[in-house]
Each structure stands twice: as structure tokens, then as C-alpha cells.
């Protein structure tokens, strides 16, 4: 439930604007817990993928440097209406998530 994500796709004159927001703590593993003083274990997204009709168009390898609840925004060309855009991510603890969106 905590790893929800939201995708918004907008087609504007052949350029498809995709915006993604992922609910993720993005702990880099260096931050101490104020109560115990011990470091909070690292927990961050290390792979972020975009697929158009099950074909990879973007793979991003990220580290703990990204902020909490990361936001991705990018533009795609050569995408037709009713194409399926899949956004998926996986983190260093083995958790993952993916959402589909259809180009309008």
C-alpha cells in the first residue's frame, strides 16, 4: 500500500508528455535515526524503466541521491494513440512496482 505510484500521460501534437510520481522513502543508508542514533538501512530505487508496447525505451539506474517520493517527467515522440506505456521500478530490497497507461 505504501508503494503506490501515479502516472499521467498527455498527448500534445504527437509529443507525449509522461509524468510519474512514486511513493518511496528513498533512504540513502547514511541518515541516523534520531531516537536510536543508528543508521537507517538503505532503501532506494535502483532501476526505473519505461516500456512502450513491451519494448524498452528508457532505463535509468539510480542511487540514494534521489529525493523522497521521486518525480519523473519526460517526453516521448514516435508514439501513436492507444499505445501502451508501462512504467516500472525496482529497489535494492527487491520490492518493485509497475503501472500501465494508454496514450490518448
Amino acid at each position: 500500500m505504501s508503494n503506490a505510484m501515479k502516472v499521467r500521460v498527455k498527448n500534445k501534437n504527437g509529443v507525449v508528455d509522461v509524468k510519474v510520481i512514486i511513493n518511496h522513502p528513498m533512504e540513502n543508508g547514511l541518515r541516523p535515526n534520531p531516537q536510536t542514533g543508528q543508521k537507517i538501512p538503505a532503501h532506494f530505487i535502483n532501476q526505473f524503466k519505461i516500456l512502450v508496447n513491451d519494448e524498452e525505451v528508457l532505463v535509468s539506474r539510480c542511487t540514494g541521491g534521489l529525493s523522497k517520493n521521486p518525480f519523473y517527467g519526460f517526453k516521448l515522440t514516435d508514439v501513436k494513440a492507444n499505445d501502451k506505456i508501462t512504467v516500472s521500478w525496482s529497489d535494492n530490497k527487491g520490492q518493485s512496482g509497475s503501472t500501465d497507461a494508454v496514450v490518448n
Partner: protein
Amino acid sequence: MKARLFIAVTALHAIVLPAVAETNFNTHPRFEINPELGVAGDFSGTYKHWRDPSAVEQFASVQTDSSNEWMMNGKNMDIVEDDFHPGHLAVDEGEKLVNLWEHREPGFKACLGSGSTDLEGIAARYPLYDEKLGRVMTLAARVEHCSKKVLWKNFKQGSPMNANITLYLKSLSNGQPIQIAVDSGPMKEAYLRGETLFYKRVGQLNFACASCHTPGSIMGNRLRGEVPSTPFGDVSHYPTYRSPVGEVEVLHKRFMRCLKQMRAKPLKPGDPAYVDLEVFYTSMSNGYPITAPSIR
């Protein structure tokens, strides 16, 4: 001899007292606010800039100057076409929670809507006086009350769960103008108490809300890095996703942050004093449409 000395002391007081009485360390000088006018009674003179989305667009050039940005009252953040922020995630989370608990304990929605399961537009009428419970209820207090009564859980005011549900309920009234009546009964009493609290000086810095949010005060001038803006129309976008905090902030949490910055001891969310202050603040947003979820 004693009597003569007493007279002498009193006479001295008579000379000194008028000078002391000029500065009141307990209250800030009052301004006339007409609760019937609602948001149109804005005393800062900036209402024309953020009256509606078209006015915000028209005065877009104002925000380019950082010292004039306060005139927009933050409303320029509401008209961004592609607003996409974690506030939307919180709305989804709240919707999920409400549907989940309605599924497990039928009657949760009916309790939230005080009888009806149609939750659209209820947020615009809060805070209101509940005759059954005999107290002024805010939306967050309603969520807490229903969770206790129907679910046998405690979604405490100020907790993330309560904030998410409150934001979801508020998002169902998106675009509807706030309509609360403070002209009679317990609501008027709460309004008057809230007005007193607005001008009440507290804390080590001896600040009142009015010290930063009335004409002739710090409002419109720099207070460290910020320029305080008018209190009118502010409630319409709360609970809001605060990017400096990184989470959804409810109005009572905002009051707590204010009190902390005034070096005063913050009260807990849901405190009767905060409820009174919320009634006063909401009456200052009367007639202004709700924007939820929002980002500030």
C-alpha cells in the same frame, strides 16, 4: 503620613500610566473584520490579484518580483496546468482507506457524511456545530469521531491516516466555495473566541497571529526569508502538501508550526483553541472555492 504618601504614589501613577497604556503587551490592536463579507473583506488590498484563476493569470507579472510575490497569496500555485505532487498520492491513500473501512464496517461513510453516504461537498460546510454532540466539529474531528465510534480505532487528529482521509474528503468538494455560518449560536461564540486568539500575544517573542498578518505589521515586508501574506483565503487549500516538510500538513499542524516559530508552546491538534481559530480562519475564506489537493 501614610495616607499622604499613598496619594503621592497615586498621583505619580496618574502621570506615568497613560504612557504605559499605549503599548499593550497582551493583545495586538484590532482591525474591523466583517464576517458577512467573507473573503471579499480582505484588508490587505491584494484580493484583486487572486480573486479567481483569471485574475491570477492577469496579474502573473506580479509574481516575477520576489518582494511582490506575497500579493498572490500563494494562489498562483493552484493554477499550474500539470500539477503533479505527492498530495495526489495522499488523496488515493485516503480514498482507499475510506472504501476499505466502509467495506469492513458499513456505516463509516454515513457517519462521515452525518447521515448520508454522499460525501461530495461536505467539506465546504465544515467546521460546523453538531447538535447531537454539542460541540463545534472540524472535518478532522469528524474523522476522528467516526473512527472511534464506528471502527473502534483511533485515527488521531494530526496523524497521517487522518490527514489523508481529511484531504480525500476535501478533494471531493474541489471547486466548491466555502460556506459556513457564524452569525448565531455556538458558531458565533467560537468565531469571537477565535478572533480574540488571533490578536492574543503569546510566547517569548510576544507575537500574535496579527503581528505578521494584518496591515501595518510585518505583512508585505520581509521576515527573514519570507514575506507574510494575508490570512484571507488560506483555509481553502488546507490540508496541503508542504514541500519543505515533505508531507501533507493539516491546518492544526500549521498552527503548531506558527506557535513554535513564535517561541510559544504548541497545543495538540484538535485542541478547542485551535478549533476556535479554525472557525475564525474559515470565516475569512467564506466564498472562496476549495482547491484540494494543493501544494505549497
